[in-house]
């Protein structure tokens, strides 16, 4: 099963790399969004530093919507989704593979965007351990919930707005938790970072288990 999950994840990642989205587009995209926020917040340096964690995570969430959408679009483009059903691969492996591929993309994005935030918004990192753990846990949470909801809307013939509508309210706890953890790590507010990290980890675990279990029922098309 792990072999199958890895097969799926490898396929998704390879397609992503082929389409050259990677470094030469995601990074400028993320940076552009940050700059937009800077404009939107009226380039008030103090405000930017205070809100850096929140803006960082909003950006990550918005990019994750793209990644999730793409992950399912490539399967649907020319009937590969049907073949996956026919391949006999355990749905749990499909779920795990797709979630892993999305999580890896998100982690890469977080690293690059994080560097951007540190440089552009002039924040300093106080707690590296917390930062790294929160980043990983949040990526896992968004990826698992996102894979579940991506599959929910895949192939319904509806547009890109439905995924945000369904997913964003659900991952709101991740946004809050990760923002608080980062505030603590950046030292901009005295939040209890490690407690919020617990929330993030719990979220990822719950969605991981629930997604894996319900994925079969979801995929059992028509």
């Amino acid at each position, binding site marked *: 099963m792990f072999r199958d999950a890895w097969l799926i994840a490898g396929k998704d990642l390879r397609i992503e790399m082929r389409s050259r989205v990677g470094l030469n587009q995601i990074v400028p995209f993320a940076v552009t969004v940050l700059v937009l926020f800077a404009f939107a917040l009226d380039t008030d340096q103090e405000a930017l530093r205070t809100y850096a964690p929140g803006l960082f995570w909003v950006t990550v969430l918005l990019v994750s919507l793209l990644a999730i959408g793409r992950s399912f679009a*490539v399967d649907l483009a020319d009937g590969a989704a049907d073949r996956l059903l*026919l391949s*006999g691969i355990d749905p749990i492996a499909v779920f795990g593979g797709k979630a892993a591929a999305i999580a890896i993309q998100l982690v890469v994005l977080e690293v690059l965007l994080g560097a951007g935030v540190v440089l552009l918004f002039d924040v300093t990192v106080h707690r590296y351990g917390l930062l790294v753990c929160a980043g990983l846990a949040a990526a896992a949470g968004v990826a698992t919930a996102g894979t579940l909801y991506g599959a929910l809307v895949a192939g319904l013939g509806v547009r890109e707005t439905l995924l945000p509508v369904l997913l964003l309210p659900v991952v709101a706890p991740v946004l809050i938790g990760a923002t608080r953890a980062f505030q603590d790590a950046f030292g901009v507010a005295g939040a209890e970072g490690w407690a919020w990290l617990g929330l993030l980890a719990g979220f990822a675990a719950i969605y991981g288990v629930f997604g894996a279990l319900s994925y079969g029922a979801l995929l059992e098309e028509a």
Partner: protein
Amino acid sequence: MTLLGRFPALAGVDLDISPGEIVLLKGPNGAGKTTLLRLCAGLCSLASGQGWVLGHSLNEERRMVRRRVALLGHRTGLYDDLTVAENVGFWARAAGASRQDVDEALERLSLTGRLPDTRVGRLSAGQRRRASIASLVVRRPELWLLDEPHAGLDQQSRDTVDALVRGAAAAGATVVLASHELERIQVLEPRVVSVVGGMVRTGDEPAGPQSPNTPSDAEDDRRVS
């Protein structure tokens, strides 16, 4: 009876196919051939009635059916951004086939030279379809469901497909194919089944006077091999 978005694609099907048979589904556009094949693959659900494929119920054990069939549909099931070899390799590994099977399949569909390393998105229509067939060959299924297998293929590949079908049938697998190229298919000497308006008429009485056996919903059930 299969409902696609409230439209009954199949209205009454009563069909029995034994192992090793080659069956041709023929009929006008929109008759329901593709839907019937997808149904047999476990990709559609029955709105009423019952069906069995390879001994599994289509109502309850679709997952068992799915892993034992190979379906060549109108769409190719390939990833545009991966090369031919990567695509076939992916589906081979998903089916537990070996690297050697992949090479064999590519060879068999004459996907040689620079083709294996070409991205599928850059293939010509016929090459793409050949790559799709290659990625099915590696599965060694017990039931082949081929939807217009010759469409877009050149003369040589058509012969390859014919050989493939004959070989599969000889090895005991069942082949059900839908096609409009009736002249072409004749060389396979299939049993002909007409599909019209979502109803199936078995070819036992070929083009002769009709028997009035419009099966009612309650009865419609089907069994394949």
